């Protein structure tokens, strides 16, 4: 696989992440559809790539006192329960089903997010 294209895929995901979009949700399709990386590996890469950049931003956010610790302490234990449930389900589902579920997730999230942006866009144009 061409290393340059993998690097470019990383740059695209990084730019989106750096601008506050969920870069990861597009990195997986880029790696899967454009570069032929197996879906499970693309998912793993997305998780691993997030770790160092997130660790650096967490240190910066902590220094700037931007972390709502009460909220994080409330959400994290419950999210770990969700992780345990997800890990259990992961073993029961085929890759085909997971890909489709991810497709539904992207479609729902994309549609739900684009509607308010479109409304704002047309409102601005109408003024």
């Amino acid at each position, binding site marked *: 696989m061409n290393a340059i294209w993998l690097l470019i895929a990383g740059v695209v995901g*990084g730019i989106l992440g750096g601008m*506050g979009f969920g870069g*990861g*949700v597009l990195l997986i399709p880029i790696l899967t559809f454009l570069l032929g990386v197996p879906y499970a590996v693309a998912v793993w890469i997305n998780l691993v790539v997030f770790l160092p950049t997130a660790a650096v931003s967490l240190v910066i956010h902590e220094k700037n006192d931007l972390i709502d610790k*009460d909220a994080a302490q409330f959400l*994290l234990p419950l999210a*770990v329960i969700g*992780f345990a449930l997800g890990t259990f389900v992961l073993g029961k589902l085929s890759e085909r089903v997971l890909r489709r579920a991810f*497709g539904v997730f992207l479609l729902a999230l994309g549609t739900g997010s684009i509607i308010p942006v479109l409304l704002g866009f047309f409102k601005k144009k109408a003024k």
Partner: protein
Amino acid sequence: MGLRCGQTGKRKGSALLRCIAAFFAVLIGAINVLFGGGGGMLAVPTLRYCFGSDEKKAHASAVAVMLPLSCFSAVALTSRGVSDANLALTVGCGAVIGGVIGGCLLNKVPKQLLSLLFYAVMIYAGIRFLL
């Protein structure tokens, strides 16, 4: 522990908001390990609407939740034999470069237009995964 509601940050401990936040927290954890991404996109609105965090705080706090979760999820997938260190290293180098570029571009590109493009590509990718 009470939840903070509204921009004032006043603790009100609304049971309904607590339940909604709890539901989304469990969902975020499951989604992170199943799909490897997208959890942060749910964590940010959860923090904003259930905890009254402003946009900056919501993004920062979402990272605090997503970092340990992604660590667990990566370990879970690695233990199932899913990994490719060489690919991850190359993509990771690109992501670091892209992260710096994205940070510099943050206030220089029309965010609304970029959001439209981003969500449109997300919808397209969703359809591709379904086909």
